């Protein structure tokens, strides 16, 4: 499929919402995958920092899995970090996703994400670019790409963003086009939560659960409540150390050394418990920190 297919702005199939951004709408769109008009009906842009933290990764997984399962199309920019996480989670949840490329349609950028690229197409998603052939990505093509990401979507969900980041550029476009902006709150000590904090201060909606977004799209989540009450979960552990670990991890994800210190237990004992709990699927490890799953 060298060269991809082309959709012209005068074409009937051209996405309505994108046309509405007026002069900035791209004349032509190159695409790969099966063009199905209704993929554009309910689009949500999910964007995050390139340097997504383990927190951001977890939040993406939590929110996007449910949103994608509710047949909302997830749009993002295929960059590593936040974009990649959004695409991957969608694909894994069996949802449809649109990747807007900052380069020519015949290129995959970054090239090592080829496997994800193929999975997007296989899952009835789309690869879109306004650049033809092997047009190389450049510093000015990224912000241009971001305007399409925002333009295609009714709302934008910002997971994590630094100040002066490309992610905030996408938010700016969304504001300009009059699209709804959701931002995920995060710890203020983190560089990549400063951008989202700024957005919230400026009036963006706070997203803490998938319902916040689904309500906006007027879709009722069909996800059954599987949340286990903290008390119930803790009750499952007969072992004292496991109980205390869970209780602490609920408050704050930690690494093994600080857990041992806080619980005043030997690191060997804590490590043993952590391995067992991880195998049972109660907790998980991201980087060197443990989280309650």
């Amino acid at each position: 499929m060298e060269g991809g297919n082309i959709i012209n702005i005068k074409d009937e199939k051209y996405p309505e919402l994108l046309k509405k951004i007026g002069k900035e709408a791209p004349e032509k769109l190159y695409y790969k995958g099966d063009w199905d008009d209704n993929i554009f009906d309910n689009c949500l842009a999910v964007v995050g920092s390139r340097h997504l933290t383990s927190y951001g990764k977890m939040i993406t997984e939590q929110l996007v899995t449910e949103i994608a399962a509710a047949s909302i199309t997830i749009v993002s920019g295929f960059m590593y970090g936040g974009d990649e996480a959004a695409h991957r989670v969608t694909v894994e949840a069996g949802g449809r996703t649109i990747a807007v490329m900052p380069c020519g349609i015949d290129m995959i950028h970054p090239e090592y994400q080829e496997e994800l690229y193929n999975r997007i197409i296989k899952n009835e998603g789309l690869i879109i670019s306004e650049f033809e052939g092997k047009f190389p990505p450049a510093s000015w093509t990224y912000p241009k790409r971001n305007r399409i990401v925002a333009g295609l979507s009714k709302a934008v969900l910002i997971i994590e963003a630094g100040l002066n980041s490309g992610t905030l550029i996408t938010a700016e476009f969304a504001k300009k086009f009059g699209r709804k902006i959701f931002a995920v709150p995060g710890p203020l000590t983190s560089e990549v939560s400063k951008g989202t904090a700024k957005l919230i201060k400026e009036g963006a909606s706070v997203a803490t659960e998938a319902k916040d977004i689904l309500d906006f799209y007027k879709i009722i989540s069909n996800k059954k409540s599987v949340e286990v009450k903290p008390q119930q979960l803790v009750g499952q552990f007969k072992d004292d150390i496991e109980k205390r670990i869970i209780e602490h991890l609920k408050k704050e994800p930690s690494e093994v050394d600080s857990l041992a210190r806080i619980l005043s237990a030997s690191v060997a004992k804590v490590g043993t418990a952590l391995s067992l709990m991880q195998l049972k699927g109660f907790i998980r490890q991201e980087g060197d920190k443990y989280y309650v799953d």
Partner: protein
Amino acid sequence: MLIKIPSAANLGLETIKVDVEVNLANRGLPGFEIVGLPDKAVDESKERVRAAILSSGIEFPAKKITVNLAPADIPKEGSFYDLPIALGILDSVLQFEIPEESLFFGELSLDGSLRHTKGAFLFALFAKEKGFENLFVPKDSANEAAVIKGIKVFPVENLFQLVSHFLKRKLINQAVYKEPEDRLPIPAEFDMREILGQEQAKRAAEISAAGGHNIIMVGSPGSGKTMLARALPGIMPPLSEEESLEVTKIYSIAGNIPPGGSVISYRQFRAPHHTASPVGLIGGGTRPHPGEISLAHRGVLFLDEFNEFPRQVMEAMRQPLEDGYLTISRSKEIVRYPADFMLVASANPCPCGYFNHPKKNCVCTPRQIRKYQKRISGPILDRIDLHVIVQPVDIEEFSENQKASESLESSGIIRERAILAREIQKKRFNGESIQSNAQMKNSHIKKYCKLTKEVEQLLKQASMKFQLSARSYMKMIKVARTIADLEKAPEITVSHMAEALQYRSKIYESI
């Protein structure tokens, strides 16, 4: 007139007998020639010998002198032929009697005195093996040679003294072996109790010392990887007498024993820089020399910034890591140096060093990180049993009580546990060719590490979840065995295995 003085030549760690034949001919022009494949150091011996004899107040014979080092087809190197050559010349002039079964060894200074010369220990071993009774060595090297019992070692200060000895004017007293300071490990640069936090890394260090496991520490700059590595020798069990002799051999041949020094009685800590040449690290050269990995024999080889080491060096370490020795083949000789070391490696997680750092932001792209991590060869990682992530310590997280070093375990206490664990292993592998859990091959694991159904199930579950390779699967068993030994437990239990899983490779997993 022909004089024959016995001496020896070292080929790697092996020593062969060499006869120094000295002929003084009355016919022909006066001159001095050495034949028998001498290297530059041996050839220059002529000038040293001539000056030393003159400085000793003895006239140098104006004859045609020919020295042959027999057998003539083996290359000779080193400066220790000075003494036998000088002695041969002096003997043919002064006609004294040299007791049979005597071996001579030493480098001469121009003033006639003898200098500390490398390899004395190997000579003494050779003398004992071949039934020589007397060994004459420089005074500074005498303690090194006197370790070997059953031979008489004579410390020689200068040429004149030796001549007086043979002319029976003034005898040299036999050297008495001075025991080196007790066989304790060297006081390592740091005590474990000086290191705040890093609980898991310390525990991993304990396991590695107890089972001889190789270990890699991954963490940001300043997180304390180097400090931990330098504290490691302090928790390792002391060298056994046999091991200590093995190490001394290597140090003697490499010239790393100081004047007056004796056997190496403590585990060595070698920390070569990554810019060191491959030959310097691994060993080799036209006349194969032991490298850093052999100098770390029975000790610790610490490779800081592991991914900066050239690929060639890493690949060359595979054989020694597997077999415990290194074979260097040259067209004329094949030399085998022991290199049974514990590898302690440290690495940054990414080029900038701050990947997963709690405070600082990493500026690397995934591509850069991948490339950086791939610099460590997979087969080498496969041979490293323990993987730990070392995080920078935030001092504010500690309570006053926790900050007090008294609350922390000292290296001495940890070492006691490691010694006990090693003793259990020694008993276990009695009659086998291995001594520690880390050295177990698959056949040993099958024989000595029978897993209960429960433990096996846990491990199988873990290898699915964490995608452990077959080799990692075996590594986990070895590590669990050591953890059990530390507790003196006869069987590996679920909790031993669960703890072992903590040390599986995590961030370098994908390579």
